[in-house]
Every structure is written in structure tokens, then in C-alpha cells.
């Protein structure tokens, strides 16, 4: 009993250490760090590994694109434009109360509801490449890892949540809210996993993961909730103004 308690306290203490030292520093670059793994962080083997994980999903998304653009001639412009919109949304500063500064939403949940998860992965891979090449944001070596966390995990969790909750017969606003929320948290969890796997060095993977997760709780928890509101609110806006456009975009999506 006592042993467990000390052990746990150790973990908590470590976490607090990190939170206290890093937390203040993180407040500034949180937006960049929490979502995008920066160029150069991952060792080569891990970079390759995440590329290998990401590629099949991108390929599958491209197959989806080919199939759907055969039926609908304007599908590619549509995906491109929705991609541009989501890219911009993910650049919009969103005020996160706990961080004291602005952070950025991911937008993958929203995109997945609009155009489906497969295409969201494609769009995310493009957005990440553009950011890596033209903004030095994210990176080429970490592109695979970023596609997995931001694209694959974010999109499939968001889309899955939306479908499941709709299937349960619950209102779509709730579905969209949870899709946004969970996709954001899942992205952040996955990013932490990737970082922990690469950085734990001699320490145990789970301890490192806990640390990284905890370090970003103060910004990511509220950000996820905001992202939930964003997803539901934006969808509500589109549904009330241009439902017909939503239907067209959603052939295969979920909305």
C-alpha cells in the first residue's frame, strides 16, 4: 500500500516537475508543439516507421478520391477547396483561457465529417507538406508521424465518433461536438505517443508518455473542448445556410 503510494507519488512528482518547468515555457509554443512534431525531433528509424504507417492510409484516401471523382466531376476542386478552408481554420488563433495565449484548432474532425476520413488524410498530408515546406512548421522527416497523428488518428476518431453517435440516434450537434473534441484529444494523445516513443531514452516509455501527456493537459484539454464547440458550431452554421452544399460535399462523408 505504502509502496504503491510512493511509486505513484514519484510519477506525480515527476509530472509536476515537468509541468512546472516546462509549463511556463510551453505556454508560448504550445500550439506548435502539441500538434506538429517539429523537424528533426524523431530519430531516423522512428521517422521511417511512421512513414510506413501513414502511407497506406494516404494511398487508401487517394483511391477513395479517384473513385468518388469519377461520379462527381467537381469532386477534386471540392476537396481542394475544403482542404484550403480547413487549413485556414487550423491557422485561426483561438483563445485558450488556461494557456493565456492563442492556440490553433486542428479542424480534422470537421473535415472528416464534411468529406470523409480517407480524404481528410489526403488533405492533411498536403496541408502538412505545405506547412513543412513553406512555413518550416512541422517537418519533412516528421511528416509521416504528423500524418498519423493529425490526419489518420484525428480523422478516423472524429469520423467514427460522429457515425457512432448518430447511429445511437443522438442529435448531430452532440455528435459533431464529440467528434471535434475526441479527434482533438486523440491527435494530441497520438502525438504524445510518438514523442514518448522517440524520446524516452533509458526511461520507461509509459513514464515518458505520462509526462508528456500531463505536460500538455493544461492547454490541450480546454482546446479540445473548444474544438468540439467549433466543430458543432461551424457545422450548424453551414447546415442552416447552405444545406444543399453540405449534402453534395458529404456524398460519402457523414453530414
Amino acid at each position, binding site marked *: 500500500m505504502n509502496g504503491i503510494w510512493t511509486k505513484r507519488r514519484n510519477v506525480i512528482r515527476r509530472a509536476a516537475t*515537468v509541468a512546472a518547468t516546462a509549463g511556463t515555457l510551453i505556454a508560448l509554443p504550445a500550439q506548435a508543439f502539441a500538434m506538429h512534431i517539429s523537424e528533426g525531433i524523431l530519430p531516423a528509424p522512428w521517422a521511417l516507421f511512421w512513414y510506413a504507417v501513414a502511407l497506406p492510409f494516404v494511398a487508401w484516401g487517394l483511391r477513395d478520391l479517384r473513385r468518388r471523382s469519377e461520379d462527381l466531376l467537381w469532386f477534386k476542386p471540392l476537396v481542394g477547396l475544403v482542404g484550403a478552408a480547413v487549413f485556414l481554420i487550423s491557422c485561426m488563433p483561438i483563445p485558450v483561457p488556461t494557456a493565456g495565449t492563442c492556440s490553433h484548432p486542428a479542424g480534422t474532425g470537421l473535415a472528416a465529417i464534411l468529406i470523409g476520413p480517407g480524404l481528410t488524410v489526403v488533405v492533411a498530408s498536403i*496541408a502538412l507538406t505545405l506547412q513543412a*515546406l513553406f512555413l*518550416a512548421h512541422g517537418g519533412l522527416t516528421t511528416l509521416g508521424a504528423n500524418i498519423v497523428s493529425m490526419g489518420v488518428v484525428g480523422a478516423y476518431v472524429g469520423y467514427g465518433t460522429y457515425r457512432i453517435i448518430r447511429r445511437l440516434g443522438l442529435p448531430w450537434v452532440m455528435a459533431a461536438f464529440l467528434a471535434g473534441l475526441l479527434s482533438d484529444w486523440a491527435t494530441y494523445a497520438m502525438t504524445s505517443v510518438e514523442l514518448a516513443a522517440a524520446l524516452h531514452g533509458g526511461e520507461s516509455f509509459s513514464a515518458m508518455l505520462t509526462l508528456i501527456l500531463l505536460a500538455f493537459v493544461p492547454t490541450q484539454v480546454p482546446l479540445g473542448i473548444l474544438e468540439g464547440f467549433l466543430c458543432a*458550431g*461551424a457545422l450548424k452554421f453551414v447546415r442552416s445556410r447552405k444545406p444543399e452544399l453540405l449534402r453534395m460535399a458529404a456524398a460519402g462523408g457523414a453530414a
Partner: protein
Amino acid sequence: MFDLFSDIFTYRDNALTRIDPRAKLLIALAALIAVVTAERIVLPLAVLAFCLGAVAILRIPAKLVACRLAAPLSIVAVLVVIQTFVTGKTPLFAFTFAGWQFTAKAEGLRQGTLLGAHVLGAVSVVFLLSIVTPAHRIFQALRWFRISRNWLEIAILMYRYIFVLMDRVADLAAAQRLRLGYTARGRALRSFTTLAGATIIHSLEQAQRTHDAMRLRGYRGTMPFGPLPPLGRRDRLILVSCLIGIAVAYGLLEWGVSG
């Protein structure tokens, strides 16, 4: 808000912008691999110095450099701190703060510094690439590397319309701000979701119009690409010498000097 995309420098004429983008991309990749696999901090720092030097010679405003490097720099700081205090065994120094004991460890510090060097070196490579190569040249180069056409087509459309939508979105946000849409937290969130929704609507409408315009110019579902010129002699020479240079530097800095 969106002044991130200042690609104006990529359209300047200088020695680096004139190099074929395929060569530049390959060189950058080689440099990245060298940096990421480096076991010592010398090579990444040398790359960093080289890139920053080039950036300075090209007279890129310090503001832009700072803006692009700010995020990676702070990440480096966080990483060094985490690694120093969390990993490793040999204690370096310790202090107590607010009742907690902090112990810095030698291995951790080394690890952290190396990681920091990796990040700085790698980011500077991409940064340099990004200010000497316009987007359309990169797209051309990617075609040469056999990237999926569909992926490229979407990428080209996305890239182009990010600029168009950006103007609209900036106006939308300004209009909200001018009517005090962001003066309280709850209101800010509402305005923000409205803004996101409006962006989506604009994008969907724009997609329709763009497709109409494409169709009227013969679009049948695939964007046509022009031919790619073969890699010129000069560019091949640059490519090969740079690759050799990187290899030699790697050999020297990683294995060459004793230790």
C-alpha cells in the same frame, strides 16, 4: 493573422533560386538525413550555421527568420529541459523549487542538447529551402519524384485557394471585430465558429465556380501537366557536388575526428 505565407523571396533572382528544384529537394533531403542521424552536435550545428549564413547573404529580414524559427527554438528549450531533468543517471546539479527537488543529469543534458541541435539543423535546412524555391517549382519537382498526380492536383488547388480564401477570411474576421464580436470569451467562441462555418461555405461555393471555370477550359477530371525538362548539366553538377560535400562532412564530423 495569416502573414505566414510570405513567399515573395522565392521569386527573387539569386544563385540559389536558379538551381533546379529537384536538385535542391534532393540536397535538402540528404542534409536532413545527415542531421537526423548525427550522433554529435557538430554536424547539425554546422548545417545550421551554413543555412543561417545563406539566409543572411540573401538578405532575408530578421523578422521573418525569427518568426519561422521561434516555434522550433522554444521546442528545443522544452526538450532540453525535459531530457535534462527526466532522463539519465549521473546527477549534474540539483535544486529545490517550491518544495520539489529538481536534479539535472548529464546524460539527459547531452541527449537534450543533441536533440536540440537536430531540430535547429533540420529546421534551418527546410527554412532555407522554403525561401529559395517557389511553390510551383516544388510541385514540379514532386511530379518528377512520381508523387501521385491526384495528390498533386489537390495540393495545387489547395495552395492557390488558400490565398484567395485567406483574403475573404481576413475580411470576415475584421468585420466581426469591428462589431465587437471578440470582446468577451463566450462571444469570441460564437464569432469564431461562425467564422469557421462561413469559411467552409465560401470554400464550397468557390469550388463550384472554380470547377465551372475549369470545365469551360476543357477540364475532364484530371489537371494536365506540362513536360518536365531534364535535369541540366549545371544542376547535375551542383547536385552531385553537394551530395559528396554532405557525405564528406558527415564522415569527417561524425567518424573522422577521434573520440
